[in-house]
């Protein structure tokens, strides 16, 4: 029904969706403080009903599992209460602190996270600047479309592609063959895993990562470039003094986000790619707790590790945000 058709009902229809349209709203203004909740509920109850299902969803599938982390301090028995049966204090925390495997996977997580941050984070900026130098809009559009494409692929496809390329007779070894280097069994040598992981991250994320930078670049005022040219700045100095400051807020926000997700290395990708030969470099906290928890059913122990990881992640994002707020005045919230 269009707006005009329903206009017939004006006289009989109750008016409730508008905040200021309710007459009772105005009359009761002096007693506002006491009954604002009841009044806003009376006025907006239909909006609140829209909230019911989403909030139930969040509580059941997000907040209940958060509370479920209590099993890190309680003994969990499969089939028993999902919040565990009895308190065991710091038992599981001590267990993983004294577990040498835990520290190995912790170090691997930090190294992979740091490599991704240091190598992968700056690349979209460079690619965006390169795309921005193109004057042919058609070439730019095609290059963008191609570079975004890997982002849309399932991680299973990415893993399959990586395994094919690095296989004994795959493309990379074919190339080594051409230049006369003996072929390398990449997926059996743990020293190659970090390179392969970071390489696949570059392939999948760098193109897509340029979107926000390109958007920021397009908002830079052309007059700034003109002023810089009049002041005698060449291309490089224009880039340094106009372009980079123009995208700095975007860079900072994305850096905060990246630091915040530093510990969340591509768990699914590693799970698909690794094998026991690669554990020395490829095994990270998430894959370790997956094996301990799901395969060995040591739920409380794995939950303790997971809680530790999640708390580090939360701390990282809060502190990165705080630091950037204090130093450069940009923050996520």
């Amino acid at each position, binding site marked *: 029904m269009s*707006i005009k058709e*329903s206009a017939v009902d*004006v006289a*009989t*229809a109750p*008016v*409730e*969706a*508008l905040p200021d349209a309710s007459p009772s709203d105005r009359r009761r203004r002096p007693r506002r403080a006491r009954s604002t909740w009841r009044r*806003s509920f009376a006025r*907006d109850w239909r*909006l*609140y009903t*829209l909230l019911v*299902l*989403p909030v139930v969803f*969040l509580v059941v*599938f*997000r*907040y*209940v599992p*958060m509370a*479920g*982390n209590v099993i890190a301090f309680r003994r969990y028995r499969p089939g028993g209460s999902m919040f565990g049966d009895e308190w065991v204090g710091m038992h599981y925390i001590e267990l993983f602190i004294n577990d040498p495997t835990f520290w190995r996977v912790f170090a691997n997580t930090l190294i992979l996270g740091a490599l991704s941050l240091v190598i992968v984070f700056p690349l979209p900026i460079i690619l965006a600047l*390169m795309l921005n130098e*193109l*004057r*042919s809009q058609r*070439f730019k559009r095609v290059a963008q479309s*191609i*570079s*975004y*494409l890997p982002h849309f692929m*399932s*991680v*299973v*496809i990415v893993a*399959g*592609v990586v*395994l*094919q*390329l690095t*296989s004994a007779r795959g*493309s990379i070894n*074919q190339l080594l063959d051409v230049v006369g280097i003996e072929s390398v069994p990449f*997926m059996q040598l743990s020293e190659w895993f970090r390179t392969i992981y970071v390489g696949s991250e570059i*392939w999948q994320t760098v193109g897509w990562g340029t*979107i*926000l930078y390109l958007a920021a670049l397009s908002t830079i005022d052309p007059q700034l470039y003109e002023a810089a040219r009049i002041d005698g700045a060449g*291309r490089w100095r224009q880039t340094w003094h106009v372009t980079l400051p123009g995208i700095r807020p975007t860079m900072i*926000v994305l850096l905060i986000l990246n630091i*915040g997700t530093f510990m969340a290395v591509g768990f*699914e990708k590693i*799970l*698909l790619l*690794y*094998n026991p030969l690669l554990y020395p470099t490829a095994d990270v906290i998430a894959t370790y707790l997956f094996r301990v928890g*799901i395969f060995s059913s040591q*739920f409380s122990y794995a939950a303790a590790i997971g809680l530790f990881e*999640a708390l580090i992640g939360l701390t990282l994002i809060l502190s990165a945000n705080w630091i950037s707020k204090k130093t450069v005045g940009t923050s996520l919230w």
Partner: protein
Amino acid sequence: MVTNNTILDPRKRAARIFGPSVVGGIRDSRSYTAFRWLNAALLVVICFLTLYPFLNIVAQAFSSEAFINSGQVNLVPRGFNISTFSYVLGDPMFWRNYGNTVLYTVVATAIAMFLTTTFAYALSKHHLKGRTFFIGLAVFTMFFNGGLIPNYILISTLGMKNTIWAIVLPNAISVFNLLVMKSFFENFPTDLEEAAAIDGLNTYGILARVVLPLSKAVIATMVLFYAVSFWNSWFTAFLYLDRSELYPVTVYLRNLIAGATAADPSAQQAGEATQVASNVKAVTMLLIMAPIISVYPFIQKYFVSGVMLGSVKQ
């Protein structure tokens, strides 16, 4: 503007591809022109390297296994055949799992859209009391989540393992998408809603008959965001489903490549060393990618606009 003459002149044709060398009446310096050519050449190389893995998969899909195993397949199929396609398409489990992927994607996207739209619409109303609290409730889950084990226990306790609900419910609201929709609804012209209210529509009527019909672009974007992510997902299914007839096709592919990786210790103990032929894997990958690749040229701009919309309010 483009005459036959310019097409034949290589220098002018190059100028058409790489853009003019005179901008705003100022001719580029020689070094900058050199830089622009280098930049363009580098981008061509980057584009080729990005596309290479896809082209390699296509070449393998049409090649015979002997040529792949002797390392002779890169860009061009060798031992051209399409029998691998009929082999993969002849596997009833492949069809079953492909059908599951379609079903899970459709149901999960429908649920996700319903929850996200209603939530975002309510949260977009600034006069709603408790709005900040509800936004915080959603945003907090972006930074802290329950983790793998508590989620696994929850799904097991709810009896959702080995049901479609384990796949379509736990990831129903993406907070990023929620914020995108919320900021879209916040910019919706209020006078339209006010007019509809005066015409006697209640909140539900306004949402269903006025707001949603005028939000087709953002709804299309959100549907695509969700559909692609559900189509591509495998881990929830891997975690919560034990029976192969319930698997989505991504888990089917995962099990093909797991022959080579043996990421799954239980499979390894069982001595699952069966190597699946590379061309079978390549065909399977191609068939999983196919729907996304074929709509990609049309959906790309929606994705880009969605990302930009999401970044505005953050």
